[in-house]
């Protein structure tokens, strides 16, 4: 496509969008107080005026514990970059729950998530999702993405942590002959190892992609507290831009290792962002270790606009407290990285569940997903 054609097609898409919007506005005169989407939803469930949705098109069992779910998103979605994640809403016994899932499909293809059953929401997704089901969605986001310029890469992943990296490999390896990618993936057994066949095929077909499996069932946990194993698996690891995703302790070790290897460029004393970079290492966390059960007192949480109040303990994130009370709480990653949950504090103080720090001034925006009540708390919602 020439630049001019590109421009032309963009313009006609824009025109179409404007026409659609005018049509919707005209139709809403007849449907008010409903939106035209509310009526269209009778015929196609992806329509909604308020909530992005997708319809499941295919479900593929990956391992005994995991499945890949392909879906067709409605209007409002934008295509993802390899490595990004999306918020997925699922209904459990009539109640909507939100979790984040990395998009495992390559960039430019229909989105898919690969979920491993470790709890209530993931279990429901893996065991009960069928083509035709509706998923609630938020558009893709996240900075755990491929570098802008080609570089030799090392991916270090464990368990379900391979999903964002799989999207990167699928995007890069078949399309870029100049790519140079090494994947070190740890799983319990070969049977538990996600995407094993596809990865083997890619490694066969593309000499610029090298694959090293680590099976903890046979070899024990991969030791990232020293450089010995890494030196063996990927001798030139220090020259590569590295990406790591997996359980918390695995990532903590990796982070420390790279730091020690003096590759860190972070200024002394500065915090390493949760999904940030440590020198040449980029990490993505699926969960955050909370500092729970230390007997902190909670307090009465007042949601001022909703005129509701709830007794909350000192360990439950205010996000969960609000959702359980039926308040529509803004949220994203639910682990303190995206700031989608920021809510103005009206009064009281909160405890950061990651650090234990108690803080809060009236008007301050707090992350409800990682904050619990420290005494009575008033929120603007």
């Amino acid at each position, binding site marked *: 496509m020439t630049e001019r054609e590109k421009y032309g097609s963009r313009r006609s898409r824009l025109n179409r969008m404007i026409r659609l919007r005018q049509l919707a506005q005209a139709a809403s*005169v*007849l*449907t*008010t*107080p*409903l939106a035209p989407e*509310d*009526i269209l939803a*009778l015929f196609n469930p992806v329509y*909604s*005026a*308020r*909530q992005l949705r997708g319809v499941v098109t295919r479900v593929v069992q990956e391992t005994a514990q995991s499945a890949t779910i392909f879906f067709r998103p409605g209007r409002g979605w934008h295509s993802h970059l390899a490595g990004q994640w999306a918020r997925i809403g699922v*209904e459990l*016994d*009539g*109640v*909507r*729950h939100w979790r984040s899932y990395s998009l495992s499909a390559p960039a430019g293809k229909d989105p898919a998530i690969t979920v491993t059953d470790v709890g209530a929401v993931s279990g429901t997704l893996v065991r009960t999702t069928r083509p035709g089901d509706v998923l609630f969605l938020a558009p893709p986001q996240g900075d755990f993405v491929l570098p802008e310029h080609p570089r030799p890469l090392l991916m270090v992943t464990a368990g379900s942590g391979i999903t964002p990296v799989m999207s990167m490999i699928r995007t890069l390896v078949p399309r870029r002959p100049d790519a140079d990618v090494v994947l070190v993936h740890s799983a319990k057994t070969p049977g538990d190892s996600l995407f094993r066949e596809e990865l083997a095929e890619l490694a066969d077909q593309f000499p610029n992609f090298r694959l090293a499996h680590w099976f903890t069932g046979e070899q024990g946990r991969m030791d990232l507290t020293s450089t010995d194993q890494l030196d063996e698996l990927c001798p030139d690891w220090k020259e590569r831009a590295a990406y790591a995703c997996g359980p918390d302790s695995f990532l903590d070790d990796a982070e420390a290792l790279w730091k020690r290897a003096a590759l860190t460029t972070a200024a002394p004393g500065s915090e390493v962002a949760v999904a940030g970079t440590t020198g040449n290492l980029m990490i993505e966390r699926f969960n955050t270790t909370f500092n729970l059960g230390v007997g902190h007192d*909670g307090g009465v*949480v*007042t949601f001022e*606009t*909703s*005129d*509701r*109040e*709830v*007794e*909350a*303990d000192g360990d*439950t994130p205010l996000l*969960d*407290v609000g*959702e*359980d*009370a*039926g*308040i*529509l709480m803004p949220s994203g990653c639910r682990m303190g990285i995206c700031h989608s949950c920021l809510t103005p504090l009206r009064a009281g103080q909160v405890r950061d569940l990651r650090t234990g720090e108690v803080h809060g001034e009236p008007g301050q925006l707090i992350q409800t997903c990682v904050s619990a009540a420290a005494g009575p708390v008033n929120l603007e919602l």
Partner: protein
Amino acid sequence: MSVISPSKTTPASTKGSAAGGSRTRPGKLAESGSPTVRPPAAAHLSDEQVAELGRELDAIRDEILAKRGAEDAAYIRRMIKIQRGLEISGRAALLVSKNKAAWVTGTTLLSLAKILENMEIGHNVLHGQWDWMRDPDIHSTTWEWDFVTPSRSWQHTHNDLHHRWTNVVGKDNDVGYNLLRMDEQQPWKPVNLANPLFNAILAPLFEWGIAIYDLELTEYKEGTKSKEALLKDLKALGKKVVTQFTKDYAATPAVAMLTGSGKQALYGTIAANAIRNVWAHAVIFCGHFPEGTDTFTEEMVEGETRGDWYVRQMIGSANISGSKFMHIMTGNLSHQIEHHLFPDLPSSRYAEVAPRVREICQRYGLKYTTGPLIKQVGSSWAKVFKLALPGKTATA
């Protein structure tokens, strides 16, 4: 503080994040004791008995909260689907309503759609009965209904004021809507002679009556409502009036003009709104005005405990008996007693708790007023006529 909430329940000790463990912010309920004067119909009960009754009703509520789930969610979604289906088929039929059969069909379907939307869906969604689903499409903070008064204004006068002060003369303006004399505690004025006339005019224009009522003009005149608040409400109402009018009285007839049915379509939408208004008026009047429902003085709510608050809801409300279809068309306000006890439980659960509430009333010697629609409508109209005249009338 020794106060807990008036309406949405569970005792303060209930642990936090369990679903439904929330409550509206504290009102004026005492933890123990009794009101300055206990209503005559409950005067035979001791403080301990009233507290026990409160615990029994709390237990019923907790039991339903524990059961509430996918089945209930499916129910409200089914209702919404049916309502939207009725709405579009009704409007579609009106587009060709030059044909008599199409006019009758269209008007009937649209009336049913409007009734369902206002009663079983709108009223109950706006009460927060479905907030627990966390679905922004079916939520008390996002719902807007097919009724001229804006949802937010109505939520204030209805959820907050009427449900908190149920039947307390001077506090609950739903006792006569500042228009009718509906209780002998309200002093008689010559204008009350027109009670029946006013009520007859109010019925087909009910949505307008409610819209004006929700502006709280009396509060504004008395200085308890600020000018800014009134202007804000007026603006919201103005916007809503324009969109509602445009839809029913301009856009629908305009499209119908394409088939030469413009005038008929206009008559159809006018009729549908009027039918809905008459029905809503009848149902609402059956809630607190039929013979057997009590009104209360301010002394009877001073020092009220949770148990006393429950008692007031029960003896101040009246049910309508009838078929499942009738219950749905009244938005389950035919279970007015249960609705007033548990305003934020899903309406689909009222039928299930009704026999247990009735049994509790019986055991504690409290009346449980109920009757078929015709009887209850007749009874509330009788009150409209009786109170048009001065003097005391004997109500039980």
